[in-house]
């Protein structure tokens, strides 16, 4: 049993403890404690029933925690023994789904929901989550315990919202990876589990979107971390296994005729994945999907990306016309404007816009990329 298999059991075990009467916050701590003990105990000998082992050890840890809490408060303790052994009642799937909803509760801020989801549903340690988000472990511990206090009062019975869960998982995926945890892979794992728990084609759309983007991860950056634009990516390095899975998941979702923004975004990603060479990209269909996407998420960023697609489908002047309707304050607006002006033959304007794009870039890789574009055009203009 590897780390991921072990972590898969975490939400189920938390669910069992809560159903036996534990409060969510303590149950979650107890399961983390059991996980830590499993790492050493299972090295010597793996139990025949890992889930049963975790439930037993987590329950004991919970009883210990509750006892010392109770002693501290000098009041009656209501959990004074082992639970009756026997099969676990209730549906583990329902418990796990409730836990997803709880951790992505609308009362939580996005960063708290992300942290709580990674710990209670993903089974990651506080240290791993802190490393992934580049904050001190103590800060992450506080963020998680506050989040637990916010949501823990009602146990697992609070109503949930699959839309907030999807937003949280999308945030986790988009963070990529910075530490020893591949957050994109973890987001895919959790979305895959979620897709088995709820009947919603948008969840499958989100899963497809992640798979199709993850398939291109090896080609998106050069060995030095530099951004490699889609047009220049080595498509032989795309992961065809992930692409076929993503396309299959998407097709099944689209067949159910309940379109939403994640399915539309996945459809765009699928059309890119479909093209053997950049020149083969079906830009006309991509523009059509952007129009669909606008019905669900009419954001400046969607309109900006649509302008790029229009420029490819109908030529740079059409792209610039589409760009005219986009707020210039939108992130990466200068980069798109520069690209379209260069395509349109106006190198001087494009060079100035690339320089502006570099100044306003939200991250270092993007700044370097736009600086190189500006330098390339200025060399041509001066040469």
């Amino acid at each position, binding site marked *: 049993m590897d780390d991921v298999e072990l972590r898969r059991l975490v939400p189920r075990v938390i669910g069992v403890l809560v159903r036996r009467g534990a409060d969510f916050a303590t149950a979650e701590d107890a399961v983390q404690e059991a996980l830590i003990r499993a790492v050493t105990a299972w090295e010597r000998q793996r139990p025949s029933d890992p889930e049963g082992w975790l439930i037993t050890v987590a329950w004991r840890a919970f009883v210990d925690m509750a006892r010392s809490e109770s002693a501290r408060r000098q009041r009656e303790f209501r959990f004074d023994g082992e639970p009756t052994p026997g099969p676990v009642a209730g549906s583990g799937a329902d418990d796990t789904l409730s836990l997803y909803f709880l951790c992505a509760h609308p009362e939580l801020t996005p960063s708290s929901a992300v942290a709580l989801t990674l710990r209670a549903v993903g089974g990651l340690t506080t240290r791993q989550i802190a490393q992934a988000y580049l904050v001190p472990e103590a800060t992450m511990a506080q963020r998680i315990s506050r989040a637990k206090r916010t949501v823990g009062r009602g146990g697992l019975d609070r109503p949930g919202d699959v839309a907030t869960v999807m937003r949280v998982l999308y945030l986790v995926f988009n963070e990529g990876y910075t530490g020893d945890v591949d957050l994109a892979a973890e987001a895919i794992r959790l979305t895959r589990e979620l897709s088995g728990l709820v009947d919603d084609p948008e969840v499958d759309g989100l899963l497809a979107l992640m798979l199709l983007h993850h398939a291109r991860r090896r080609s998106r950056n050069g060995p030095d971390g530099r951004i490699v634009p889609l047009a220049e990516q080595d498509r032989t390095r795309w992961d065809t296994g992930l692409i076929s899975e993503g396309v299959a998941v998407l097709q099944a979702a689209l067949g159910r005729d309940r379109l939403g923004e994640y399915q539309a975004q996945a459809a765009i990603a699928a059309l890119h994945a479909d093209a053997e060479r950049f020149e083969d990209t079906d830009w006309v269909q991509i523009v059509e999907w952007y129009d669909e996407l606008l019905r669900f998420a009419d954001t400046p960023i969607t309109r900006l990306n649509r302008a790029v697609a229009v420029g490819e489908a109908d030529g740079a002047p059409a792209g610039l016309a589409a760009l005219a309707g986009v707020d210039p304050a939108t992130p990466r607006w200068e980069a798109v404007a520069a690209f379209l002006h260069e395509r349109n033959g106006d190198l001087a304007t494009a060079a100035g816009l690339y320089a502006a794009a570099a100044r306003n*870039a939200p991250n270092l890789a993007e700044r370097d990329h736009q600086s190189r574009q500006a330098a390339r055009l200025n060399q041509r203009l001066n040469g």
Partner: protein
Amino acid sequence: MAKYLLLKHYRGAPAAVNNVPMDQWTPSEVEAHIQYMNDFAAKLEASGEFVDGQALAPDGMWVRHDGPGKPPVTDGPFAETKDLIAGWMIIDVDSRERAIELAGELSAAPGANGEPIHEWLEVRPFLTMPPTVAD
């Protein structure tokens, strides 16, 4: 989920409203100021928004490479340097609004007469990692 640097300047920021230098405060005013700063950091730790906080000595020097095989050249400190950083706090917050709110609170630290200093703090967003979904 964005990191911001809250920069405090010895020199170079616009003048604070309650602009009395610290060496002219009473001891209890100094104590109250230090307490406020400690409480502020502790509050950020408790809210899960604290990343780092450091103070810098006012005197430093300029250093540059001076060619292969040679030791680096040092110079300064230059008394006329316009901008002098006193220290910083790094926060990890959900929004720009929250960063501004916290900087405003930090700027309200008490100074002379126990009144808020209203000092200007520089708030600078960190450049981030590129997002996974970029096209």
